């Protein structure tokens, strides 16, 4: 059911919401996260970011992450789109979108999707700085911690609300 896509071109956020909910009357809420390129990285100004990926593996990894979300929450659809290639500050990088009958499931699933995508999908970012220097972005312990928290099951805040 999930839609996953890797592409160079930008995505149309409104069109993705519309595609997921078109003709449906069972959805009560859609949770979404869009990641964008920030101009500043560790206090330095970047001029561009290049995203590399492992083509044979990427869509499969995204589909698995989506399937895991669908097994954890009663989703009525989800969308993962990740861009590759060279992006500029302000550009969109990634969109995750999850639809459910109830808002907490939609929001929690969106949070899960981006946390797992950040640690389980084969993308690598290289930042190019104003002085011409280029460095590969290092993985962050916080991202691992954010992804790991989902191993304990839905967080307690999810248990507090079903709609």
């Amino acid at each position, binding site marked *: 059911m999930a839609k996953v896509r890797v592409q160079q071109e930008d995505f149309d956020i409104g069109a993705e919401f519309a595609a997921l909910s078109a003709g449906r009357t069972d959805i009560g809420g859609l949770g979404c996260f869009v*990641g964008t390129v920030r101009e500043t990285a560790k206090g330095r100004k970047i001029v561009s970011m290049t*995203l*590399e*990926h*492992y083509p*044979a*593996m990427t869509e*499969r*990894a995204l589909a698995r992450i989506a399937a895991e979300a669908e097994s954890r929450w009663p989703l009525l659809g989800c969308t993962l789109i*990740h861009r590759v290639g060279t992006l500029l500050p302000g550009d969109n*990088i*990634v969109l995750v979108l999850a639809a459910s009958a109830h808002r907490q499931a939609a929001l929690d699933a969106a949070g899960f999707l*981006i946390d797992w*995508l*950040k*640690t*389980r*999908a*084969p*993308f*690598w*970012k*290289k930042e190019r700085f104003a002085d011409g220097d280029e460095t*590969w*972005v*290092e*993985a962050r312990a916080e*991202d691992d911690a954010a992804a790991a928290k989902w191993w304990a099951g839905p967080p307690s805040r999810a248990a507090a609300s079903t709609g």
Partner: protein
Amino acid sequence: MNQPAPTVTRSAGLTVLYFAWLRERTGTAEEVVAPPVEVATVGALIDWLIRRSPGHATAFASRDTVRCAVNQDFADPETPVRPGDEVAFFPPVTGG
């Protein structure tokens, strides 16, 4: 002395892919290699690959920052590798 010498090479090669700084350090995006049959796990493959060039040695110098996938599934040093497999090496992922 009539016994044939043990076969130490494989008939089908292993495809090895490198991404991000592993690609830059090895100077290689993809190579097909034919390690001896004793090279049966990811860990053994790394031990064998680092002898291919100084770039390979540099790429794998800090092994705890190297991640691996075998046939597009995340793998670890104990994961078996067989002829025909696609083995990819890369840094921890940083998408999203």
